[in-house]
């Protein structure tokens, strides 16, 4: 099957990007050094093409109630032009995807799914519409998505838009004109830094990329690929679907039970997965079998996804879900599910790195939190 190309494909190639197949999309992995791209986002700014993300528009008089039913969050309680991190679960509580939902109007929401799950989410939402006065529309081809992330992002955006950036709070959005193009401008991201995500028409993507590149030239903005996006989110302790989140896990297993809103007042409090999630919540409260923790290594070898975590006696006690060198900490870091008995920060454990046990320490997540 041929890979899907974003509206910025030619531009990435002209920049000499190393491309990679990501969920069926041909995406920039890095343009030069992924470490330098990572550091640019932490200290200055980075520009990302995230057009692989899957936009789904939900509209109609009962759009809010419908999303309360279909997702685990209390979506109808969200203010207009605000966004929320949430999840869609199966009836058995298993996570189908993690999502950001943007309320774009009184009766309209934009659901943004991971590229790898966009079809699954679209199908599940469509299936769950029964009895609701609502339309679910596949808008994956309607939007390109650019992100500007990093401490200089605000200044860069300010030079190409008159939008009220000081008034645009974290997890909020605005219809805005950026470099002459009409976009949805959202203060969201997946890097642990301040920044913006810009949903635009694919035909406008190149113009916006170029305008942002020029606006950021004297502020240290660099193009950034998915490789540094992954290390940035890992340092920020943010989960990635397929790694920390899967259909085999509930939000409570992942330590993200807060996204499940049993206090919803719509639909008589019922939503898909409620029963199973109540049981999962009770179990997490009483005795969580495993916990999601951070690991930090003093060595150089990188604990990677699927490697086994072992006790200091060498007994298997968990599995790594994501791992990489941390450019900010200067040492390897990982996220892992480990037995609750070994999950306390400060606990000494080890990782089986291709047969050799590398000592690591359990730490609380996140690894990195920006100064505000």
């Amino acid at each position: 099957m041929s890979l899907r190309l974003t509206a910025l494909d030619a531009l990435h190639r002209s920049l000499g990007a190393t491309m990679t197949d990501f969920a069926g999309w041909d995406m920039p992995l890095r343009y030069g050094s992924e470490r330098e791209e990572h550091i640019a986002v932490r200290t200055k700014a980075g520009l990302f093409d995230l057009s692989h993300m899957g936009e789904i528009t939900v509209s109609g008089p009962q759009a809010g109630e419908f999303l309360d039913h279909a997702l685990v969050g209390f979506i109808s309680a969200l203010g207009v032009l605000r966004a929320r991190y949430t999840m869609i679960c199966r009836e058995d509580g298993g996570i189908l995807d993690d999502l950001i939902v943007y309320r774009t109007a009184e009766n309209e929401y934009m659901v943004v799914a991971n590229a790898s799950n966009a079809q699954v989410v679209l199908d599940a939402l469509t299936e769950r519409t029964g009895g609701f006065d609502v339309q679910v529309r596949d808008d994956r081809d309607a939007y390109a998505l650019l992100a500007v992330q990093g401490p200089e992002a605000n200044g860069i955006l300010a030079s190409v838009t008159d939008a009220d950036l000081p008034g645009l709070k974290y997890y909020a959005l605005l219809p805005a004109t950026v470099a002459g193009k009409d976009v949805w401008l959202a203060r969201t991201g997946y890097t642990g830094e301040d920044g913006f995500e810009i949903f635009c028409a694919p035909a406008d993507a190149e113009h916006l990329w170029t305008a942002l590149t020029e606006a950021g030239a004297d502020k240290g903005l660099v193009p950034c690929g998915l490789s540094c996006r992954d290390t940035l989110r890992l340092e920020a302790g943010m989960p990635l679907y397929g790694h920390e989140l899967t259909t085999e896990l509930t939000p409570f297993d992942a330590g993200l039970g807060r996204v499940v809103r049993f206090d919803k007042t719509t639909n008589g409090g019922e939503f898909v997965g409620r029963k199973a999630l109540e049981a999962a919540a009770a179990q997490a409260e009483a005795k969580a079998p495993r916990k999601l923790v951070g690991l930090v290594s003093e060595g150089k070898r990188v604990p990677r996804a699927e490697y086994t975590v072992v006790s200091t006696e060498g007994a298997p006690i968990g599995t790594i879900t994501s791992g990489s060198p941390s450019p900010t900490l200067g040492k390897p870091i990982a996220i892992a599910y480990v037995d609750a008995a070994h999950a306390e920060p400060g606990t000494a454990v080890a990782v089986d790195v291709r047969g050799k046990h590398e000592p690591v320490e359990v730490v609380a997540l996140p690894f990195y939190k920006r100064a505000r």
Partner: protein
Amino acid sequence: MSNPTHLQYTKEHEWLTAAEDGVSTVGITAHAADALGDIVYVQLPEVGDTVTAGETCGELESTKSVSDLYSPATGEVTEVNQAVVDEPALVNAEPFEGGWLFKVRVEATDELLGADEYTAFIGA
């Protein structure tokens, strides 16, 4: 980066200098270093080890991957580059120079390519 003509190359993307007093220097090519991305860990054979042409003798880890290092020659390792062990990024920065990996007293080699052949092989 072009592939220096005074070196010989393997299809596993290592390079080897002409032997001086029987000893050749080994590294990985710019093409390989670029494909790996930022290298964060280098494991080399030890001085005195015997390496075998075409077989693994170490490991290179980058942000995203772990790759075996194949020896282009059979023989005893006479020296390793401690600088790249201490600072693996040197392999990315200077793959054909300061980023060399180890020296070997050559008894035999793998099938080797000239610079032009290697350049054609990687399609550059």
